[in-house]
């Protein structure tokens, strides 16, 4: 049992981390073979090799992200501790951080449920192996747990070190914290899985399953963001409301109280309660899932078929329109793709509508960024671009060809048209969002003519740059060997690089605009325009050759 669980876990870890079996090391196939099946559909026959630099680059990127997150957590924790300690409220720090890690686990797991726990691509193969269903579930749940453990480690360990520096707790604090740390992700994973299952189950009853899934998940995300904004407002004013903050959090998530009492005051009753509820709920949930796994999986993944089609008039399109339609359908039919690569468009539109309806002051207060005064219209062109750089479907568009890549390779189309179609999806989304949101903001804020022009020009420059940069990266670092779209849409090196680069090239100029004035945004816009020309030229020469050289 343990050996089989470990083998399944190892295969899934390699697969979900996007690593191909290293020919010099023990491969995945013998591992599966030892479970009683060889020559499996997981075979790498004819699979195109991913770019060689991909794994190393991805590792460097992940380490960088982790370091940045740790830095931010330490910064935030120390700022809070400086305010809380004089008020005698330092115990609020572990409580808030535990709540933050639970929210992070919750939100990142909702749309992992369908793909990791249910509806995974090699379901048929795995379920046909001589392995108990409970072992399969255990391996899948372990993956979810390990993913989330990483988030908890990054958030809770640095913040708890900061807490220990200020509170100087007794020696018993450390072992209790370590045990609690291991237990923290369990209940949020259950809640997120349940929400993810509910969304997938409701969506499965709609003819347009993907659309329903996207809408329900966006609603869930917006609700979460609304709650977070309220929480941040509470946190900002914690000095005034003191202990009531703890009561608010505890009402929403009672485990925070037990965790805080166990860690901060070494209350063993709370510790036992926290451990018993976390482990008990997790085991119970896993047992229920294991018992009904096949039924639940079929319910969530079944496609509604009507089987009543009758031939009618077909719409004829040009080759270019057909290629664009192909890319657009790919985008809107994959909920995780829309949610991960299109969320910036939704956010920028909400932001602009709120500014028009509620006024800039109210909106900026709501997101905790008030105090810009007259510089607001100078900083907004770069500020809006922050949402735009989060929208980059092109960074996963090559990888998403996956095992169907043979189709486009054997079709009588120019490679430049294929690449242009990929870019167009990205550009249409972001340009549409910029034109609408910049117009609304210009109406609301009545800037000078130059500022009004920059409100369009700067985000548009970021839009074109992000689209081109994403495609260029994906042409160099593609992966057709994914098991779920999430691997390339959310966790791949090109996507992570584009988002991190985008954040850097919007946050730094925004700070410089505040200190040096609007000239910075003019220079950045011009620089991006030059980069766009260079990238465009590269993609439609070397990029075409790179695409043509990919085998299927």
């Amino acid at each position, binding site marked *: 049992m343990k050996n089989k669980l470990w083998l399944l876990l190892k295969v899934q870890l390699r697969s979900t981390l996007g690593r191909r079996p290293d020919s010099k090391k023990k491969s995945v196939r013998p591992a599966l073979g030892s479970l009683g099946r060889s020559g499996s559909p997981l075979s790498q026959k004819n699979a195109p090799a991913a770019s060689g630099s991909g794994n190393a680059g991805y590792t460097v990127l992940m380490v960088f992200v982790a370091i940045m997150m740790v830095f931010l957590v330490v910064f935030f924790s120390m700022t809070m501790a400086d305010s809380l300690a004089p008020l005698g409220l330092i115990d609020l720090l572990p409580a808030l951080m535990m709540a933050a890690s639970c929210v992070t686990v919750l939100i990142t797991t909702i749309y992992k449920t369908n793909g990791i726990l249910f509806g995974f691509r090699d379901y048929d193969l795995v379920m046909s192996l001589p392995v108990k269903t409970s072992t399969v579930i255990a391996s899948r749940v372990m993956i979810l747990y390990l993913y989330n453990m990483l988030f908890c480690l990054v958030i809770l360990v640095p913040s708890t070190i900061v807490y220990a520096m200020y509170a100087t707790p007794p020696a018993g604090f450390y072992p209790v914290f370590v045990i609690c740390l291991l237990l923290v992700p369990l209940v949020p994973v259950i809640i997120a899985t349940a929400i993810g299952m509910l969304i997938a189950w409701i969506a499965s009853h709609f003819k347009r399953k993907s659309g329903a899934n996207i809408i329900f998940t966006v609603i869930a995300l917006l609700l979460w963001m609304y709650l977070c904004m309220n929480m941040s407002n509470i946190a900002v004013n914690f000095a005034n409301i003191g202990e009531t903050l703890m009561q608010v959090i505890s009402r929403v998530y009672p485990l925070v109280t037990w965790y805080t009492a166990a860690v901060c005051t070494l209350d063993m009753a709370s510790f036992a309660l926290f451990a018993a509820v976390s482990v008990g709920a997790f085991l119970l949930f896993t047992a229920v899932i294991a018992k009904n796994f096949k039924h639940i999986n079929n319910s969530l993944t079944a496609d509604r078929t009507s089987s009543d089609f009758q031939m009618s008039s077909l719409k004829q399109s040009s*080759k270019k329109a057909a290629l664009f*339609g192909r890319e657009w359908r790919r985008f809107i039919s*994959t909920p995780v793709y829309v949610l991960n690569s299109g969320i910036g468009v939704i956010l920028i539109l909400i932001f602009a509508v709120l500014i028009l309806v509620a006024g800039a002051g109210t909106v900026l207060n709501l997101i905790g960024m008030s105090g810009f005064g007259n510089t607001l219209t100078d900083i907004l062109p770069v500020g809006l671009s922050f949402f735009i750089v989060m929208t980059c479907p092109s960074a996963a568009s090559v990888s998403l060809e996956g095992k169907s890549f043979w189709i486009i390779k054997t079709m009588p189309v120019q490679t430049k048209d294929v690449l242009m179609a990929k870019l167009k999806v990205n550009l249409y989304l972001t340009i549409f969002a910029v034109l609408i949101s910049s117009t609304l903001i210009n109406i609301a804020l009545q800037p000078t003519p130059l500022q009004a022009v920059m409100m369009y020009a700067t985000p548009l420059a970021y839009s074109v740059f992000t689209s081109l940069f994403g495609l260029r990266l994906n042409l160099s670092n593609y992966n057709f060997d994914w098991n779920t779209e999430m691997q390339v849409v959310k966790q791949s090196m090109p996507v992570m690089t584009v988002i991190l680069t985008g954040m850097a090239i919007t946050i730094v100029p925004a700070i410089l605009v505040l200190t040096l004035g609007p000239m910075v945004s003019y220079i950045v816009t011009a620089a991006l325009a030059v980069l766009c020309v260079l990238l465009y030229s590269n993609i439609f020469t070397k990029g075409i050759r790179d695409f043509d050289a990919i085998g299927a």
Partner: protein
Amino acid sequence: MLKIKNLSKTYKGGTKAVDNLSLDVANGDIFAFIGHNGAGKTTTIKAVVGILDFEEGSIEIDGMSIQEKPVECKQITAYIPDNPDLYEHMTGIQYLNFVGDIFSIEKAEREASIGKYADAFEITRNLGDQISSYSHGMKQKLAVISALIHKPRLLVLDEPFVGLDPKASHILKGFMRDLCNGGSAIFFSTHILEVAEKLCDKVAIIKEGRLLVSGTMEEVRGNSSLEDVFLELTDHEK
């Protein structure tokens, strides 16, 4: 229609999948390409349809080089892979219409062809459903229909009968014969030697990337069965 001259393909890592292979498939031919697993059939087929690049030799389709004029070659070629990985997010009809757009098939002709082939393979009523809901056989039928609707001058198939039920296999063989009677050529790999023997005019046997024998079915087979010839050649040729 298809001329392969001295084709060699070596993968990264040094594995030579195809070694100095030459073949000639004429208009009207149904040409079977036979060999053990890993003999180089799929690599050759993928080079023919423009999926894989190659370093040595040449491939010409209707006198045009697949390396120099890939779009023109692909316009008159259709390919059906051994595993029909189609666009799962599309419905069957969306996929066929997409193929129609890419091959610039006129609207009336497109509707008539899709109707004809979908009715023949009995999947018309499923065309409005997402491809992800299709069985392996239905996907294979859809791949076959998508290959036939643009009336290719060269049809290249990799193990086309795998996954098809006996009736669908029979129908496909009929369409293959019709296509060749209309002047097109068919080049396909198969492990089902009885099918090759009954259906094909010409045959080539390949082992470890090298051509063992090629010619008309009668020339290659002589007085034996194709199975006997295949086993004798592949077992004795070291």
